[in-house]
């Protein structure tokens, strides 16, 4: 399922930098208010996934020795599954406990239609 999630070059560079500082990483896609809909980046294992989650991808990022897992809750994926996700990065303050916030950068999900089956 790895083609469900891709990474822009700018996001890959930030992932490499965070990997050097914090060790192996993971993402969990958020929902809800404030910084909802933003992908949260944590040290691998910091966020405990469970049966309510689905692993969308194990991202191969150049310069990062291990795959970076990307998770989302199953209920949210049910609503997102007609789209493909691209992890990008923009200048920002960030929030939540995502690792990149102190860098003055924020991961951002960009979406494209995978198929038009919602009608």
């Amino acid at each position, binding site marked *: 399922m790895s083609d469900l999630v891709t990474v822009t070059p700018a996001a890959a560079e930030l992932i490499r930098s965070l990997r050097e500082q914090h060790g192996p990483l993971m993402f969990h896609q958020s929902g809800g*208010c404030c910084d909802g*809909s933003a992908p949260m980046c944590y040290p691998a294992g910091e966020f405990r996934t469970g049966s309510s989650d689905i692993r969308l991808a194990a991202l191969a990022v150049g310069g990062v020795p291990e795959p970076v897992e990307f998770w989302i809750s199953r209920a949210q994926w049910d609503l997102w599954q007609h789209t493909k996700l691209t992890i990008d990065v*923009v200048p920002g303050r960030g929030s939540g406990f995502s690792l990149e916030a102190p860098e003055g950068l924020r991961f951002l999900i960009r979406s494209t239609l995978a198929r038009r089956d919602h009608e």
Partner: protein
Amino acid sequence: MTRYDAPTHWQSRYDHFIGGEYVKPHGGRYFENPTPVTGQPFCEVARGTAEDVERAIDAAHGAAGAWGRTSAADRALVLNRVADRMQEHLQALAIAETWENGKPIRETLAADIPLAIDHFRYFAGVIRAQEGSLAEIDDDTVAYHFHEPLGVVGQIIPWNFPLLMATWKLAPALAAGNAVVLKPAEQTPASIHYLLSLVADLLPPGVVNVVNGFGVEAGRPLASSPRVAKVAFTGETTTGRLIMQYASENIKPVTLELGGKSPNIFFDDVSTAPDDFRDKALEGFTMFALNQGEVCTCPSRALIQQGHYADFLAAAVERTREIRPGHPLDSATMVGAQASNDQLEKILSYLDIGRQEGARVLTGGARAELGGELSGGYYVEPTIFEGSNSMRVFQEEIFGPVVSVTSFADLDDAVKIANDTLYGLGAGIWTRDINTAYRAGRAIQAGRVWTNCYHAYPAHAAFGGYKQSGIGRENHKMMLDHYQQTKNLLVSYAPKKLGFF
């Protein structure tokens, strides 16, 4: 029209407020705080770390015992004095909040700050009226129930209503006799310090401690500390789950407010007459632009019944086009700046995905270029999408001035669409028929159903979520329960032994 001057009362730098005084960050680092009005930094703020959080928790523990034993009358007096001081400086607080967050001054003057003042007064009142209870178990046995404070609590505040959300959490916690360690959002860390400059002398040292910083560096150590008795958080679902995970390690309670995708439902009978009520309903529709849509209960899904769909929607589009964007400190401005650049970018990404999914843009749909000094700020055109409820713009909280509109056939259809969401925080119902209003209101899975109104947040009306929108009810005396322990003294007045041994 009044154009207020940009605030000049900021300090160039804010440290942590710990134990009643300002303390430099352990790591010696600061971060710049820009105003979303222009995108330019206006102060530096301490970049807190675990050491700073520990110091604040120490100070809170030092103060919690005495504060928790203070009489309810004395605690209420402190809250009332805080409210009085805020009332005296209402305009300055409103200007500070607008500069910090980007919201229009007419909202901070009429809503944010007056609501915060009233919130302190409300909890000053309810703590005086709160009573324990007793139960007469039998003729010789009485169970006494006392309310006791939890001790030291952690609070993580969002950036959409920096002062009001801090107040929603501080007022009940302080009324109940707790000491607080509070972390403001890193997007809006400064206005709470302006408030502290006005009220710090009213608070015993250590009762309120503010540690600034980023979530990962300051929020995480606070949320995962075994030395806080409870964590309160407003934000999004992944962080909410993470905070629950930390709390599970320490077996501590949490309250969470995690947002929604609130339906605003307009039944056919709204349009039976072109009167004040229909005009009010059109204003209710347009409430999606209040606070630039950065409200957990933003009425971001409008469901319009088929019989008046075309006419009502046309009038709603017209009303939305009358929304006046502009400088947030201009009293005529109706929609100001989004709170941060990443928020702006996220909203723009949803305008893109909405179009890709085939939603029709009826008005707006782009970044607003306001020119001049505002050209570096974060402005979005109020936007109406028309589409179907399965689209992502109908299912995710965009947190911008964006509403997605669809139609429904009858009450059952309206309830079905309204409840077809992961969330359940707010909802709106507009009808002249009390039976429809009652049946729809009870059937919608949401903690707050505004009926023939929207976006009212009076103290004494419980606010909180069903489903993935969170745990707990703020804005009401029942929030005291979330900041108190129950102590039961089970007392026997029988002089004779049981006879077992």
